[in-house]
């Protein structure tokens, strides 16, 4: 394998990791807070993609894409808030049941998308500069991939600012560390759950816009990214943004490098093996909050 191919794959890996990360951030945040996984999270990507498609029908061209980002964010966040209020809040402390109930939501949303937009999927016409590529010697970097990485860095930066520097972030960190104590100091933990959950689904909606610029939006577009995103959450450690980022990078790079040696399906098997081997070494994830609690 020559150096150029390796560099190309490295870059590929980072852009794959970016999509995994955008899909996994919301999952990881609400998992850290509530210990529940929303199986309909992949459908938030799908929702974001379709909202981008609708926005671009309404406002074509570059302003449409700029407009699609807030529209998808707000739309997916609203859907997330609805799921949180109607379902997840009722299933507090029953994480496995939450998995099953939200899977039901995912099935319904997928079928609804199939009925509304058709099973084949819709195309969002990306602006020409996105189909370009930059060339450095033998290394070719498609602009679209660069765009994903940029969006991801922006989202991560904004999220870090929100969590580290704002009052909402303070309450999130407090509930994350100790729900009961946070409640005792007057923080409304239920509201924090709602805000974080909506924020997480909003980020997934935003990721959906990015995916729509890269390929067709289909009813099952979320399903293709969600399983790796779950693996990222498992490897990341409880609710840590940094841990999730590192895990996404590890998995994205591993999967891109594995694909230089074996085909896509074998790479998927290897990815799973990698995660199983990883938890032999660090079952608590990349980053874990040290605590004396026995039952997490």
């Amino acid at each position, binding site marked *: 394998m020559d150096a150029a191919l390796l560099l190309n794959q490295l870059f590929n890996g980072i852009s794959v990791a970016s999509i995994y990360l955008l899909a996994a951030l919301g999952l990881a945040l609400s*998992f850290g807070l509530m*210990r*529940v*996984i929303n199986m309909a999270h992949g459908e938030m990507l799908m929702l974001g993609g379709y909202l981008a498609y609708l926005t671009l029908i309404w406002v074509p061209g570059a302003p449409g894409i700029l407009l699609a980002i807030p529209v998808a964010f707000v739309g997916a966040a609203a859907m997330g808030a609805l799921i949180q209020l109607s*379902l997840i809040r*009722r*299933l507090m402390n*029953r*994480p*496995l*049941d939450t*998995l*099953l*109930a939200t*899977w*039901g*939501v*995912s*099935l*319904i949303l*997928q*079928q609804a998308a*199939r*009925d509304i937009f058709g099973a084949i999927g819709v195309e969002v016409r990306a602006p020409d500069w996105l189909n370009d590529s930059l060339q450095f010697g033998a290394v070719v970097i498609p602009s679209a991939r660069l765009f994903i990485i940029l969006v991801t860095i922006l989202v991560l930066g904004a999220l870090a600012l929100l969590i580290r520097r704002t009052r909402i972030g303070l309450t999130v960190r407090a509930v994350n560390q100790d729900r009961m104590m946070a409640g005792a100091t007057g923080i409304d933990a239920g509201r924090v759950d709602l805000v974080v959950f909506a924020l997480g689904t909003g980020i997934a909606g935003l990721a959906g816009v990015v995916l729509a610029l890269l390929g067709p939006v289909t009813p099952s577009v979320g*399903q293709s990214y969600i*399983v790796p995103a*779950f*693996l990222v*959450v*498992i490897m990341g450690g409880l609710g840590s943004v940094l841990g999730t980022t590192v895990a996404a990078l590890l998995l994205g790079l591993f999967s891109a490098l594995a694909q230089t040696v074996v*085909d*896509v*399906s*074998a790479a*998927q*098997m290897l*990815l*799973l093996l990698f*995660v*199983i081997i990883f*938890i*032999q070494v660090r*079952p608590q994830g990349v980053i874990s909050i040290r605590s004396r609690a*026995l*039952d997490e």
Partner: protein
Amino acid sequence: MSDAVTSQVPAADGDRAWRRRAMALLPWLLLALGAAAPFYLSGYNLSLLGRFMAFGILAMGIVLIWGHGGILSLGQGVFFGIGAYAMAMHMKLAAAGDGQLPDFMMWSGREALPWWWEPFASPVFAILAVFLLPALLAALFSWLVFYRRVSGVYFALITQALALAFATLLISRQDVTGGFNGLTNFPSLFGLSLADQTVRDGLYWTTLALAALGYAGLRWLLATRFGNLLRAARDAENRIRFLGYNPVPFKVVAFAIAGMLAGVGGALFTMHAGNISPALVGVVPSIEMVIWAAVGGRYSLAGALVAAVALNILRDSVSSAFPELWLYLIGLVFILTVTLLPNGVAGLARRVSRR
């Protein structure tokens, strides 16, 4: 006043004892009803019932691990698939005849049989593989995860990734697995023609016998110390450790048994349906398997068995008439059973009969 009270109590007790006896009779009634099915069902419907009963065997395994062990597996389709493919490989080799390649291998231009296909030519090996291969794989997989004390949601998600990887691998290896279409076209089973109705009746009774055996075996197992420890590990794993037990072997053995039941179910399904494909073993079918147990009642073996049959009859009739409707319906079933009926229909029946 006191007379009225004392005269009421024995009556209520008698009523309850009668109900308990009726409940104990129910499995026997179901067994008799099932055993007589070849006499009142058409050949096609009998084959459907056999297929769904094979699902029921798998669903009882989910009751063992999920209801009693607290282990949610979203990857039972993998073990179902291993049993199904093991049996299908044997039937495919039998159909091809000695030294011949199965038809789909010739179509995809393969020259020789892969080495791991060869032992499946022997019926004894194939039957052993149906029971042991899923159990061994389930044991190895779950041990790797459980002994690092990874469980709960993490375990569920890892099993889902396993289901995805398994189905993708099956689809991509067209030349040795039949790819997306899977394996199909089995004229005979252990030298007997599958077109013969008496053979099909025998196959059905074998399925029923295995389902009954699975039910009785699991009932016994769940009443032993093993069952108690499994439930204890579900409710308070750390407390079990403080008491000096290692819960890992219990969970691994339970998961292996559930894997074996899934494999047996898969093999029986393949014999009844005459095909197996990745569409039956991937992420979506695997999670639907859990809903059979959830609707029946996650703690109830009989509930899961009956619900697996009933839900699949429903699916068969709904999805042939309105294919779009089925996904909405099953989605709603997921949401409603979990929120309103966490103990399923069996839990509801128990609550009503205690009243």
